[in-house]
């Protein structure tokens, strides 16, 4: 089960999407006053970050 979760996280991060659970946990702990993004919003945010000039370019 743990291995499966690792593979899933790995595949997601390969396309630039980090763990949503980690993000939600972080928001809950550090910024309880602010609403966390929903999962689809989170994915869109990461897409824009990946290709919006701040992400690293991919290689040859």
């Amino acid at each position, binding site marked *: 089960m743990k291995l499966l979760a690792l593979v899933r996280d790995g595949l997601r991060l390969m396309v630039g999407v980090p763990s949503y659970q980690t993000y939600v946990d972080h928001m809950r702990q550090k910024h309880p006053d602010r609403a966390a993004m929903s999962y689809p919003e989170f994915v869109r945010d990461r897409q824009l*970050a990946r290709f919006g000039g701040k992400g*690293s370019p991919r290689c040859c």
Partner: protein
Amino acid sequence: MAKLLKHGPFVILAVVAAIGLSIVAGNRGEEVSALWIVFAAASIYVIAYRYYSKFIADRVMKLDAGRVTPAVRLTDGLDYVPTNKYVLFGHHFAAIAGAGPLVGPVLAAQMGYLPGLLWLVTGVVLGGAVQDFTILFISMRRDGRSLGELIRSELGVVPGLIALFGAFIIMVILLAVLALIVVKALADSPWGTFTVAATIPIALFMGVYARFIRPGKIGEVSVIGLVLLMLAIVFGKNVAADPTLAALFTLTATQLCWSLIVYGFVAAVLPVWLLLAPRDYLSTFLKIGAIVSLAIGIVFLAPSLKMPAVSVFVDGTGPVWKGTLFPFLFITIACGAVSGFHSLISSGTTPKLLANELDARFVGYGAMLMESFVAVMALVAASILEPGIYFTMNSPPAVVGTTAESASLAVGKMGFPISAETITETALEVGETTIISRTGGAPTLAVGMAHVFAGALGGKGMKAFWYHFAILFEALFILTAVDAGTRAGRFMLQDLIGTVVPSFRATSSWVPAITATGIVVGLWGFFLYQGVTDPLGGINTLWPLFGMANQMLAAIALTLATVVFFKMKRERYAWITAVPTVWLVLCTMSAGLAKLFSDDPAIGFNAHARRFGAALERGEILAPAKSLEQMSQVVANDHINAVMCLVFMAVVVAIVGFGIRASLRALRAERWTAIELPLAVPE
């Protein structure tokens, strides 16, 4: 006893590596299994990882498990996230491994597999992996800043700008050469063109699906997309068989070139979610899947090597590319040995995700070893083909003509007999009309992969499917790179122009965005068109330029690392980056000088320009130019390429000069002068 247990396994690996290398190096015509190459390379990687990278981590960098990484200190769940090291390894590997390590070794195989193998292995252990690891380390100690920012803060504003400019040029050349590989692979191939074209509507559908129908479901939409892709490959056969459809998807190289330029521009201005992101899912997952399958296939099939260990073409007269072993082999194989481009990735998202300083070794050094392993497999895939087939596919039409008979004759003369029937039959087997002069590396790799996959699964009947699967896999991630690269290039350009005209930096405003995108597409489109219309096949000219640009960037990154070690007062270990820097400077400078001043028109840009210029004055038209205008175009192209070469050399010289100055200054300083963030406490 404890020592024996600790080091014993590595001694055994060293023996395996030595046996493997001596078997493949001593190959004099008898059948040798390609597995020896794989085992030898893998053993060397493991040993290098265990000892050399540990030495760098413990003694030189003094990685500190107790020190808080940017991912922990600045954690936001988005850009800065402490990440499991295996997950991060996958992320980093997927970002660094692309078409480069697959194409370079295939082209280098014209000298036999041994020179390429030796350079891949030593290059990565002492150069490439060291670069990736040190840049990751330096960026990790500075909040995950980018290469340009790191150079600005450690070397100065001017070197920072020069490095940004260098990174921009390499981007342009990279995009042109990648696009050229796709053009070469798809020209006059209706099956291939159809499947690649089909990826566009498939990606658009996926984009809409993941945005409106099932928002954020990446896994689900990727599975749907991959199934559709496989269907497209299967259906492609019918397209190729149907005269009307086949005519529709049979494009010449020039038509493909223009389609790519238009596609590149449109794709770079469309919203990310619509085309780019879903394409990214497909290409990333297909890439990882294909690489893993290739590794399994090679081990399972254990094919024997057909290419000689060292071919006659080490003297520089080979048909695939011109130039002697030194420096041109080291330019031809950049990715897989040392790839400067990785310095942009090691200072990109990866340093912001390291949970622990110690992980930098596994992610930085380890992932590069993995890429080198991919390059070794590409070398194997090219070397298990009949050399006759290899040279038929990779020689320009000017050498082998366009018919099976002329190719058979020309390649036979090179010393690699191949019958015209075999050439025609091989083309039929992979479902193509011809395999003659399918340069660019991708088709050769695809035939090799089809050989491995069909041998493991499906037999001869499946060869055509696997060939087009391999072509699709390469074309797909190349197109994603073109698309993402055009965007990245656009931002780099906006940043560069923004230093003069600040308003140009506004990334959300339309005018600068469209202008910058247009310039970037125009630049790589120019080099692409030049390559497509080049009589010698284009790869001949563009690939060395790309290799030089890539090694130039590596020299810049390694110079930065050397300076940082000096500033950390660890100059006694600075050789770990200084030695590969010197080597890369030697390679890029000698290749650059040869490209500028060689009297051989096949190597020197100026010699080529003189030959065409002289003919032009006499009013003669030399093939492949068809008119006097084209003749002057050839001359102009030569001059532009020569200028590019000069620019690369000037950039290298300037950065190394700044590097030496900064190192000397650091040497004279009494204490640590590196600028770490948060400000480091000197030891």
